[in-house]
């Protein structure tokens, strides 16, 4: 079996400034108070190792701020690793942001081209897949109307249709299933199941343990940027629930 995702000794640091985006004034103040830097270095990921075979579905679980989104960000090349090696083989598509670059004044079709090219598709590829995208989005004649006339659900369906049609070898999914109505969620699950049958690799991030058990046979538990446990989903989720319960009791 070939390897789809290989992460070796991955560390990721963030410089957190306590004042948000800087200003010249802030920089001057920093200059005057030299030695008392107002920036803090936070480790988002610490020595993470992960090997995912092609065709595998793996869930990543953990509390808020445990490093799940940072890991997906690095795999989708939005962040650069501070240390360590990351290799992803094949085309990566991420369902991190549905409808990236969508503009309310453009029509559905115009937005398909814009969003598709942001996701790395060529004009020709988009034209070839246009009918599939429109059909999958179930938007019908709305596809020629400006996006601002769409409901939120319609916008999500359109974004999802484009992302799915990028024909990814590796699909990164981040909590998108949590939003959207029942019908949309069912559509997402059916697509994920189809991808699994087609032998594509899926990395699935969620708080919803029910969804995790449904989608992924294997789970990775992250806490404070470290891998706590990596194994069969039943065991990992059980241990995770146990830990959360004991933490809850400790607080009380």
């Amino acid at each position: 079996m070939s390897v789809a995702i290989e992460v070796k000794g991955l560390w990721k640091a963030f410089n957190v400034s306590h004042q948000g985006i800087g200003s010249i004034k802030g920089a001057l103040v920093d200059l005057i108070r030299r030695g008392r830097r107002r920036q803090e270095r936070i480790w988002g990921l610490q020595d993470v190792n992960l090997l995912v075979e092609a065709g595998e579905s793996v869930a990543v679980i953990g509390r808020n701020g445990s490093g799940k989104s940072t890991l997906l960000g690095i795999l989708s090349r939005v962040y650069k690793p501070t240390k360590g090696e990351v290799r992803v083989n094949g085309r990566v598509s991420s369902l991190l942001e549905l409808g990236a670059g969508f503009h309310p004044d453009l029509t559905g079709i115009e937005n398909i081209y814009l969003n598709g090219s942001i996701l790395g598709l060529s004009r020709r590829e988009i034209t070839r897949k246009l009918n599939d995208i429109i059909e999958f989005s179930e938007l019908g004649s709305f596809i020629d109307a400006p996006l601002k006339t769409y409901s939120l659900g319609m916008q999500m369906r359109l974004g999802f249709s484009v992302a799915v049609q990028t024909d990814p070898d590796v699909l990164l999914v981040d909590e998108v299933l949590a939003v959207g109505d029942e019908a949309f969620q069912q559509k997402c699950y059916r697509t994920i199941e189809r991808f699994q049958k087609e032998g594509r690799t899926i990395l699935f991030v969620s708080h919803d343990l029910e969804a995790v058990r449904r989608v992924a046979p294997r789970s990775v538990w992250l806490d404070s940027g470290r891998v706590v446990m990596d194994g069969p989903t039943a065991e990992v989720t059980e241990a995770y629930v146990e830990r959360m319960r004991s933490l809850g009791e400790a607080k009380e």
Partner: protein
Amino acid sequence: MIADLKELYRYRELLLNLVIRDLKVRYKNSVLGFFWSLLNPLIQVLVITIVFHYVLGLRARVRDYSAYVITALMPWTFFQMSLLDASQSVLMHFAILKKVYMPREVIPMSTVLANFVHFLLSLAVLFAYAVVRGIHFKPMILFLPVVVVLQLLLNMGLALFVSALNVYYEDVKYIVAVLTNVLFYLTPVLYPSGFIGDEYFTLYRLNPIAHLIIAYQKCFLAGARQLDPRPLDFGLFGVTAAMCIGIAAAGYAFYNSRKWEFAERL
């Protein structure tokens, strides 16, 4: 840098689509639509001609004065709008930058290119204006594409600088607005370059945008009354050309050295 350029080439269609989006969106909800891109420079030409020739009464004393102002104003607008639009561009796209991989430089570049399309349209207006005014073109007009390309490089380089810096210091967009206002008076738009005495003229032309605008006037208005009889100094223009190319390369390198931090800063 070579690797960055290759990746940028791979994403050329995205760059094109972002430019198309900018152009479509700008006039999307107006009745006249894209025609506004032509109408804007056209109205400017009319107003300037009326003000300078009839209100200020310059027609009798300085023929072709308004032609100089118009020829300078078009590239100046391209310069100013490129920098102002670019300075905010990265912050305006932070939602995408935090979630999707792409060569980050396409964002400021697309804003400059969208302004470039508008500039090309205003050049068409400029040609029509020259024909209507009966200004004959001389061989110098063949030099125009060189000047246009150099200005595109200059705008691109500066746009990459300011858009990257604005991620770190949001004051940058205000500084850009103030500096371009100051630069406006160091550039022969409202007055002909003939007003600048010989002793300062070399220094004056070391400002690349001033020298480019002098070059635009020399290209377009070789057949008009010369308000500055000194010919284009090609030696010194070589220095300007080198500065434009240098600024473009430096801007690109600077932007690329920082572009992967943007998602973490925003």
